[in-house]
């Protein structure tokens, strides 16, 4: 954790965000003996909110939190320092030698780094309807695995058509007497084997429909929905909670002007995770990679760290890590090697 003495220290690399990409970048950077700082609000990002993970090789069935805690433990074991804070600003400057030096600013601290690795992933997309903001944390939720049990025994609604929406519906169906799944289309993007499980008496599919308004008093009481084809055709459904699972967006405010983004505000990267700005690297869901998967983010994080290391070698003259193969040692007898005095003990070798 941070303390006052770290302020003003210069790090070799600063990693922003601690999902699968950031934590893997931290492991690789630290193992290259780079002085590595990670600034993050949480650990594990989106993966940590996933109930069950079965497609990460080698670990069997695991909860997202458990898997991500393992990633974090490795990063810390190899020397990564973690500061829990929200990054407010990342700015580029130069050091005394005229080489790039970046400043990462949080609410209360400022850190400097020769290289930056951006791994802060995606943010939940909001519906943008009346009542959504007002009832945030008062019945509107973006994390079914966190909040579902708080709605036990109550009717609830899920919005969306992808895997996370269907997952949330199935989770809620275990503990709620009625679950409405509202989706804009007829067909689901979610995998077929998940969609098949929706055939339950207390799960109602409300298709070709979108949300018009979320209503309530101190908390959510009902949701008004409307047909996509005919906005006049509305229906008010009484629910205690609305789980919004309509995908993710890039929170680009922090990086606009620093690196080039595509039309969806994802960070454009080279094959080796370089951004348009020398010294700034990016990995994981925040970049233009096609597949947003834990294992892919982890691989990209490793690439970003190795490329950052190569960059530091070139710009700062870092040498490779000295590996002690033991070749410089003087020849020793087996006795001295294992720490005994052969003569004294009268051992015959």
């Amino acid at each position, binding site marked *: 954790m941070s303390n006052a003495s770290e302020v003003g220290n210069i790090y070799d690399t600063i990693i922003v965000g601690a999902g699968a990409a950031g934590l893997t970048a931290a492991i690789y950077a630290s193992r290259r003996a780079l002085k590595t700082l990670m600034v993050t609000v949480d650990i594990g990002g989106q993966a940590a909110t996933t109930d069950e993970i079965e497609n990460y090789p080698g670990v069997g069935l695991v909860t997202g939190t458990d898997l991500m805690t393992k990633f974090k433990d490795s990063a810390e074991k190899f020397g990564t320092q973690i500061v829990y804070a929200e990054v407010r600003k990342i700015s580029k400057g130069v050091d005394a030698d005229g080489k790039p030096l970046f400043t990462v600013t949080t609410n209360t601290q400022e850190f400097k780094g020769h290289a930056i690795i951006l791994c802060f992933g995606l943010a939940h997309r909001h519906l943008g309807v009346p009542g959504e903001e007002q009832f945030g*944390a008062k019945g509107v939720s973006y994390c079914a695995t966190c909040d579902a049990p*708080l709605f036990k025994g109550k009717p609830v609604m899920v919005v969306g058509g992808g895997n996370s929406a269907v997952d949330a519906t199935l989770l809620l169906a275990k503990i709620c007497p009625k679950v409405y799944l509202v989706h804009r289309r007829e067909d689901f993007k979610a995998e077929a084997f998940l969609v098949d499980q929706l055939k339950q008496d207390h799960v109602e599919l409300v298709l070709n429909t979108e949300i018009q308004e979320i209503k309530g008093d101190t908390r959510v009481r009902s949701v008004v929905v409307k047909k996509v084809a005919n906005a006049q055709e509305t229906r008010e459904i009484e629910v205690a909670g609305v789980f919004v699972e309509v995908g993710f967006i890039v929170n680009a405010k922090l990086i606009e002007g620093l690196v080039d983004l595509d039309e969806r505000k994802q960070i454009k990267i080279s094959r080796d995770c370089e951004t348009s700005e020398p010294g700034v690297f990016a990995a994981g869901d925040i970049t233009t990679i096609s597949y947003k998967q834990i294992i892919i983010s982890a691989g990209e994080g490793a690439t970003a760290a190795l490329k950052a290391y190569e960059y530091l070698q070139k710009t700062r003259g870092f040498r490779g890590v000295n590996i002690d193969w033991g070749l410089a040692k003087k020849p020793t007898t087996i006795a001295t090697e294992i720490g005994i005095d052969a003569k004294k003990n009268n051992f015959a070798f």
Partner: protein
Amino acid sequence: MSEIILTEDNFDKEVLQSDVPVLVDFWAPWCGPCRVQGPIIEELAKDMAGKPAKIGKLNVDEHNAISTKYDILSIPTLGIFKGGQMVEQFVGVQAKDKLQAALEKHA
């Protein structure tokens, strides 16, 4: 100072009747982000030792009468109580410095 384990039995005495502001971490074992927040709260409790504030954790799974009373519908929720009332509330994982500043503001 270490954090206080809050229950339905001690909530009144430890939180509502407290002379100093109390930060309450509403959490549950099933919630991934809560498990991230936990160690941050523990560190905050250590840092705040000797200062006029208390820090407690309430498991909403075991003590849902209290979480229901305060309409806790998203966790982790961090509530600051003063004079028997919840005076400030944060939802989602919060950084230590932000919570410390909020507690000091209400002290």
